[in-house]
């Protein structure tokens, strides 16, 4: 004998709607030597963080860290979501006349990212491939081979995306090797405001379309327009 059950349709109250958002970890590495316009980048980053806070798709998934580097490195914002529209960050230009120690800066960034990924795994948190957005004058000194080998290995396995924005074409071949797409992007050709808008556009696309899950921020399928930023 069959018995009729009361419910004829499931309701939102009966299901799990608190699904974890997939995090989008981005590590900004900002050169702070006199070779690079640090103050302009700082201003754009503050505006960028504020806009993310007001973006429904991004504020719950964009996991942003910021590090400045010259001959040393300093994390000015540890990985976390954006939770204030008026977040302030301070990137101080170095007094050094030396070029940046880019190799050590990249290794420090990778180390910080690996620690953060461990946290994701502990919390069973889904995440997109971590991205280093690198701002460099294009001039550097010091040991580079270790960083190059490490990044090439991570790039090959798809576990790290590096997007280099450089001020001039010095050492372009190094940046091409570490770049997720093989392209080196100009940090100044079209203006920083447009550049950060483009980054934000890609982040939005990546976070709202499951079809873009494996792709990098600079993938043409994620957002059109990156060709305008390629360093010629």
């Amino acid at each position, binding site marked *: 004998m069959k018995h009729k059950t009361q419910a004829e349709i499931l309701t939102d109250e009966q*299901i799990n709607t608190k699904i974890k958002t997939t995090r989008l970890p981005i590590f900004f590495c900002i050169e702070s030597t006199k070779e690079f316009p640090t103050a302009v980048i700082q201003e754009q980053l503050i505006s960028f963080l504020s806009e993310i806070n007001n973006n429904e798709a991004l504020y719950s998934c964009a996991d942003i860290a910021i590090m400045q580097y010259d001959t040393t490195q300093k994390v000015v914002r540890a990985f976390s979501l954006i939770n204030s529209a008026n977040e302030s960050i301070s990137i101080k230009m170095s007094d050094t006349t030396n070029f940046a120690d880019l190799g050590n800066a990249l290794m420090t960034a990778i180390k910080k990212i690996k620690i953060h990924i461990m946290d994701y795994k502990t919390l069973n948190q889904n995440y997109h491939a971590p991205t280093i957005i690198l701002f460099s004058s294009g001039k550097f000194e010091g040991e580079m081979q270790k960083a190059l080998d490490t990044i090439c290995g991570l790039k090959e396995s798809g576990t790290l995306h590096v997007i280099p924005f450089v001020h001039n074409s010095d050492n372009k071949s190094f940046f091409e090797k570490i770049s997720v797409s093989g392209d080196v992007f100009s940090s100044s050709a079209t203006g920083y405001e447009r550049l950060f808008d483009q980054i934000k556009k890609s982040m939005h696309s990546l976070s709202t379309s*499951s079809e873009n*899950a494996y792709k990098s921020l600079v993938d043409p399928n994620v957002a059109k327009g990156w060709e305008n930023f390629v360093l010629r």
Partner: protein
Amino acid sequence: MKYFVSYAKNIGTYHVKYDIPCQDCTYAKTTENRAIAIVSDGAGSKTFAKETAEILVKALVRLFDKDLLKYNIEHNLLFNELASKIREADMDIEEMAATIVFVYVDGADYYCGHMGDGGIILLKDKKSYLLSAPENGEYLNETFFFPSSDETHFRIKSGKITGETTFILSSDGVFDLLFDTDTQQAMEACKTLESWNVFEDNANELIKNSLQKVLSKHSNDDQSIAILSVK
């Protein structure tokens, strides 16, 4: 023992928007003393995703119909049997991929097989358990598929059914809605699904209606549910 099965699928809103067919395939059936429920989810990035899911489901049903499923499982033949059916198809093997999750009951014995995401929720003695969890890769949407992934990712479990038991199988588009991984508990919806499966003649229709009108609001992916109850 008496067996009850039901199943339904619904095309994801993303697939509708971009005119992509539903790439999930689900089915369930019973005989007097055996039952099977299957969910397969074709990989969205592959050209023959839908076809691969259908091949896997048909291959399992064929083994069920010939009463060869238990033999294949117990002799560790099932992975190769399913993979060979995919290879036999006249399609580019590089463009074929699908996950699979199934439960087969033979008398009081149950067997479940799982490769990839989605999952199997077990309801028994008013408690819920995660019988088979989704296996994901490093990143979002990265999982394991037939036929490209290693056999070690094809997880087979078996056990005895000792009382009233319900297995709820789902594709990844709906699994997270039915099971809270933080608390490791099935959501209330699972009890309703179990009740429909056992007591309602139109269980398939009720599940489909809920997928279309409620569950699809929370995922843009294809969604499939298959239920097997033993009373």
